[in-house]
């Protein structure tokens, strides 16, 4: 069994064991097994980084086995510089989520932990898959655990949110399914992604494929204006669900652009890049403004995720190495930062059971340690230099300025909105005098909460101060991708 298979199936195997054997009267044992499973799953992904060959853009750790021979579908895995960090990120966030759900979840613990472990394995599968159908199976299968997580452990309006999440995402994916089948036929009976990258396609076909993929990935990212499912899903999901959704699930869509839209339909991507840049800027600016007026903390972070993901898609569609690499860095840093933001809200929610900004005020007086963490995360969220949030946004803005000054300018203005909504929320929730009795009786974070918050804080600072390990890995692959996208596939 290869390393990638191990990375995918270890968490899934632990998850299945938990589903099969766990009982609520042995909740403590269930939690420990889940933690062991998550940590082991993280450990098995580490060699992917340490043994990664920086000098090549070719796929590494490749595994191929025929899977469904009738359709020439292969169990074909491999990673390059673009995907390697997402696998580690997924496994890392999974550990955090298990720790974060430790005491909070008391009902059906085994199903909660099992769902997250299985989900993490499936998402790693999405990042490794080099066969179109294998990708689709992993991509779609993630819906099932996420649907159940939102629906079972979610907030008051969870059912609406769960349905909206599922159906919205399914709508886009089904159009992608048709595109995959079309490509299979066009390629003479192959689902091999790398073959598709080389497949010559006419302009009309490319345009249709581009929009079919756009339907799937834009919903998942989510891009403006198909982002409306995200605030609902985030608000109603339990903390762990929000964390995984923001940190990893959104990246599946952005990753799809890099693996499918750009290399398979490069001419259409160039033709429609104006539209994509426009939508990205709308996300960055318009959604940035929308974020400012949110009264619900989770909603605020959800909208800010949409704005941040706008930077990612903006970076991809300006077609230079700074932009694309910046977009990928932004995806990774947003994985850490949004996870941290949602966990911070979770810490408050567990104590007060409210996400309203108005229900808080002066938290710093009763929870000084926690506020220190919160400040770091909020600074990272508005892209302060020295934190992870800065690197990606800065690279994308630089890249955009190279292409068109006004695009870069518009994107840069979003940093102001980011600072505005983040700092304003920080002021209203944490600073000032103690607002009410709830806040007065708050207890500061315990060792468990300290653990997962500090893990994220380290990651955020490390990435902000020394982003080289992150960018080094992707350089060659990004250059190769851009070279490929620059060539026309029209015949």
């Amino acid at each position, binding site marked *: 069994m290869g390393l990638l298979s191990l990375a995918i199936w270890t968490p899934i195997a632990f998850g299945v064991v938990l*589903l099969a054997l766990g009982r609520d009267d042995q909740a403590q044992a269930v939690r420990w097994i889940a933690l062991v499973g998550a940590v082991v799953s993280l450990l098995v992904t580490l060699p992917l980084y340490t043994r990664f060959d920086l000098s090549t853009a070719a796929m590494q750790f490749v595994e191929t086995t*025929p*899977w*469904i*021979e*009738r*359709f020439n579908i292969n169990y074909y895995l491999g990673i390059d510089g673009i995907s390697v960090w997402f696998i580690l990120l997924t496994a890392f966030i999974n550990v955090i989520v298990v720790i974060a759900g430790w005491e909070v979840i008391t009902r*059906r613990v085994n*199903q909660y932990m099992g769902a997250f472990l299985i989900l993490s394995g499936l998402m790693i599968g999405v990042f490794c898959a080099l066969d179109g*159908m294998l990708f*689709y*199976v992993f991509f*779609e*299968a993630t*819906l*099932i655990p996420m*649907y*159940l997580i939102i*629906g*079972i452990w979610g907030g008051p309006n*969870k*059912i609406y949110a*769960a*349905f909206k999440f*599922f*159906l919205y995402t*399914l*709508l886009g994916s*089904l*159009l992608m*399914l*048709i595109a995959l*089948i*079309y490509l*299979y*036929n066009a390629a003479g009976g192959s689902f091999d992604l790398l073959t598709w990258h080389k497949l010559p396609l006419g302009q009309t076909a490319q345009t249709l494929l581009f929009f079919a993929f756009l339907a799937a990935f834009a919903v998942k990212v989510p891009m403006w204006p198909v982002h409306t499912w995200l605030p609902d899903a985030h608000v109603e999901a339990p903390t762990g669900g929000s964390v995984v959704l923001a940190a990893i699930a959104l990246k599946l869509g952005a990753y799809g652009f890099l693996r499918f839209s750009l290399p398979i339909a490069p001419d259409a991507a160039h033709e429609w890049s104006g539209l994509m840049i426009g939508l990205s800027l709308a996300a960055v600016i318009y959604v940035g403004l929308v974020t400012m007026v949110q009264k619900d903390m989770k909603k605020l972070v959800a909208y800010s995720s949409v704005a941040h993901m706008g930077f990612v898609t903006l970076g991809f569609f300006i077609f230079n190495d700074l932009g694309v690499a910046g977009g990928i860095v932004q995806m990774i840093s947003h994985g850490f930062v949004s996870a941290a933001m949602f966990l911070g809200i979770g810490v408050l929610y567990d104590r007060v059971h409210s996400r309203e900004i108005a229900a808080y005020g002066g938290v710093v007086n009763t929870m000084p340690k926690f506020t220190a963490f919160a400040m770091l995360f909020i600074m990272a969220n508005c892209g302060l230099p020295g934190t992870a949030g800065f690197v990606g946004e800065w690279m994308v803005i630089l890249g955009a300025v190279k292409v068109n000054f006004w695009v870069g300018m518009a994107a840069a203005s979003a940093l102001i909105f980011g600072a505005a909504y983040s700092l304003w929320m920080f002021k209203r929730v944490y600073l000032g005098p103690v607002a009410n009795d709830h806040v007065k009786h708050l207890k500061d974070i315990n060792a468990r909460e300290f653990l997962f918050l500090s893990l994220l804080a380290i990651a955020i600072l490390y990435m902000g101060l020394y982003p080289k390990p992150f960018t080094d890995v992707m350089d060659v692959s990004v250059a190769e991708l851009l070279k490929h996208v620059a060539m026309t596939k029209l015949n």
Partner: protein
Amino acid sequence: MIDNLSLIAVYPEIILLVMACVIALFDLSVTSRTRTATYVVTMLTLAVVAALQANFASAGQTVYAFGNMVVSDVMGNWLKCFATLAVMVTLVYGRHYAAERDMLRGGELFVLSLFSLLGMFVMISGNNFLVIYMGVELLTLSSYALVALRRDHVLSVEAGMKYFVLGALASGFLLYGMSMLYGATGTLNIQEAFAAIQSGQLKHQVLVFGLVFIVAGLAFKLGVVPFHMWIPDVYQGAPTAITLMIGGAPKLAAFAVMIRMLVEGLMPLSIDWQPMLMLLAIGSLAIGNLAAIAQTNIKRMLAFSTISHMGFVLIGMMSGAVSGHPEATANAYSSSMFYVVSYVLTTLASFGVILLLSRSGYESEEISDFAGLNQRSPLYAAIMAVCLFSLAGIPPMIGFYAKLAVLQALVASGGTLQLVLAVFAVMMSLIGAFYYLRVVKVMYFDAPAGSAELSAPFEVRAVLSLNGALLLILGIVPGGLMALCANAVVQMLGS
């Protein structure tokens, strides 16, 4: 001319017929309330028949018997094997349900099931229009009686009556169409009819006139729009065990009849019947999915969902004959076959859970009866969820690969129209996902409706768990079953 070779080809049918008669007599001496002895003998018979069929199928030979009246080929033998297994599973799930509802006062359930299975066998192996018709009649006549088996139950008797009237009408259509074809071609044998039409010397008008009736009759039996009206009423009204009996295995036989008549017999008319099937498919996908949303009764919901799934089967059937692409033919029909087999497997498990939740004096028919099932029994809830996700076509359940295969055949078969139809089909399955998800929601997100103990005999639990697991396992490794279907169809087309 009856020779030994002919007899060998119908071995399983002979065993089935003899045993059905023996069991009918033997049952007279059984007094047990649950008819355990009859049940055991029936199951043994079916197991032997299934094994024989699997054996025949693996031998891979095509044998024509009784002067070309019947054929024993790989596709037919696999379908017969699956149908036998489906009937076995149905009896396992349904026996206690039937016993609790006074349906086991005599052994009719078992005997009629065997006869209906025999009818399916004859349909599947028929190589002659009249033989196929006989099989259809044997199956449906047994089914009418089965539906009305609960004689003191108004709904059940009403459903039986409805089924009978509409079924008789459909049989009439079928027979009329056959007579037209007989008039035009001068033969009832399928290969001879094929050759006669292929020659191009027959009057096209007459042939198409007959074809319309045949397609309408088949559409009735399959239950596709606009010939679907009986499906919801019969599914709802029939005792649940019987619903499974008519909603499971017979779909396999109906598929075989479509292949035998339309493909093996009327392939030269495919340019006429393919658009007919397309219209039927579009209607079924739309009405089946839209009407299912409004249902609160789960049997009725699954009935409408059946209609939409048969629409998908038809999509595969209408993508076979593409000029210039002979390889598309096997691809399309095998995708339909895979769809039917996986659909039957899913139906068995979903009705199995419904049967399991029903108790003496209590029918678990409303969707709300599933409320909080996850808290009462995580296992059964998981099995039902796997069924529903499979029906909705979400990977990694087997239902996804069925849809994939059918859509691939559709897209491969042509140009823009087919692409648009494929988009339409996936949009309809998006609507389908909504109502399947609603049941998942009721099971997982709502508070439990009752606290009654969910108990089931060991055999039911074991078979149901295996059935549910198969949906997932075949979803993770679907290659084998797909290859089996492809191989069966290739052999059928080659002979």
